[in-house]
């Protein structure tokens, strides 16, 4: 008698478990293979400019003072919603000016030509071929694209600032504050950033994708030359063939893709 009651309870228990488990299993099955949407077909824009390693040559012979650089910086900062912070410590920079001894500390000579000594140099993210920031990023928010652009996925940035420590060029800025109140005219076509993410120049990848040259190149009247470093026929390579150039802090081994004609 005792054993049969025991058996009855066992069976009852197991079947109760089975009945209870079914809805749970169904739920998991539904949430797993939930996607009813048909497999999406995605393409590149046909007009997109393609390269193996985008690069830039900056012809500093064509600049005389900060005035010549202003429209270039303005063009970039305007379309990318880069805020203008009054507090230097909160400053956000995508492209900015620097004196020779700051931009090229390893090339400093005891006597510099007068022209160069106080000439403002245009500096931006070097889109390094061997980018240290990419290695430092713990979330892979910064990565190197197949066309050589060192890009940031702002969605994924956790604001740890390892990349800022890794970058030897100071090309990255951190949003210590909400940038929105500091943007004079927002460009609705491009997102702003939020407090707590790092940002930097993106080589105008959103413009390349629709077949346009970077905004700074367009605004520079030919002082900035843009092209594919791996293509021997590109304007960049043509220029590098005939003109001596230097790069910033070459000895660090990051292999910057921005070249300067002094």
């Amino acid at each position, binding site marked *: 008698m005792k054993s049969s009651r025991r058996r009855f309870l066992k069976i009852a228990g197991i079947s109760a478990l089975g009945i209870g488990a079914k809805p749970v299993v169904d739920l998991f099955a539904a949430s797993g293979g939930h*996607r009813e949407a048909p497999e999406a077909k995605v393409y*590149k824009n046909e007009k*997109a400019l393609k390269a193996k390693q985008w690069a830039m040559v900056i012809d500093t012979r064509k600049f005389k003072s900060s005035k010549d650089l202003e429209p270039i910086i303005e063009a970039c900062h305007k379309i990318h919603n880069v805020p203008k912070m009054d507090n230097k410590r909160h400053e956000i920079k995508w492209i900015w000016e620097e004196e020779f001894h700051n931009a090229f500390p390893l090339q400093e000579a005891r006597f510099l030509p007068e022209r160069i000594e106080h000439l403002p140099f245009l500096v931006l993210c070097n889109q390094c071929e061997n980018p240290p920031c990419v290695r430092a990023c713990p979330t892979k928010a910064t990565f190197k694209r197949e066309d050589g652009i060192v890009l940031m996925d702002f969605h994924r940035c956790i604001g740890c600032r390892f990349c800022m420590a890794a970058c030897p060029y100071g090309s990255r800025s951190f949003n210590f504050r909400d940038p929105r109140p500091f943007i004079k005219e927002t460009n*609705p076509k491009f997102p702003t950033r939020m407090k707590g993410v790092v940002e930097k120049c993106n080589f105008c990848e959103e413009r390349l994708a629709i077949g346009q040259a970077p905004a700074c190149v367009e605004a520079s009247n030919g002082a900035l030359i843009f092209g594919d470093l791996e293509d021997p026929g590109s304007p960049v390579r043509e220029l590098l063939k005939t003109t001596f150039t230097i790069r910033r802090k070459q000895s660090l081994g990051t292999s910057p893709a921005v070249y300067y004609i002094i």
Partner: protein
Amino acid sequence: MMSNEKKMFDGGKVIAGLIVFVILATFPFWYNHGKAAPIPEPKLTEKAKTEKVCILKKELMKSEHMQILNDWRNTVVRNTNRIYETPEGKRYDMSLSNTCLDCHSNKADFCDKCHNYVAVSPYCWDCHIEKPKETKE
């Protein structure tokens, strides 16, 4: 004998306190009873109405738009693919700012309505810019 009877000290106060506690704890339930918030009906802009169909069917958009947006952002940012082809063969630029919000420029009446109802707060608009208020038709 007294010893077997269990006596409650301050019984009146304890029971009154318990009743007050139960009433307070269940207050939200009976206060809102039978007053379920109406299911929101997102409003379409004129532009969205004339388009008739979004990139996919309405039901799919309702249930899958978050997944689609997530896929879009990954393919655009990571794989540099920017063109999306619908099953009907129509092509769109994969962009929340420039494609979705172009038609659905009424965030308060479209996005927020449902998001508030289901109490989700997606962080899209921390960065992507909400279109300026549409002038009334």
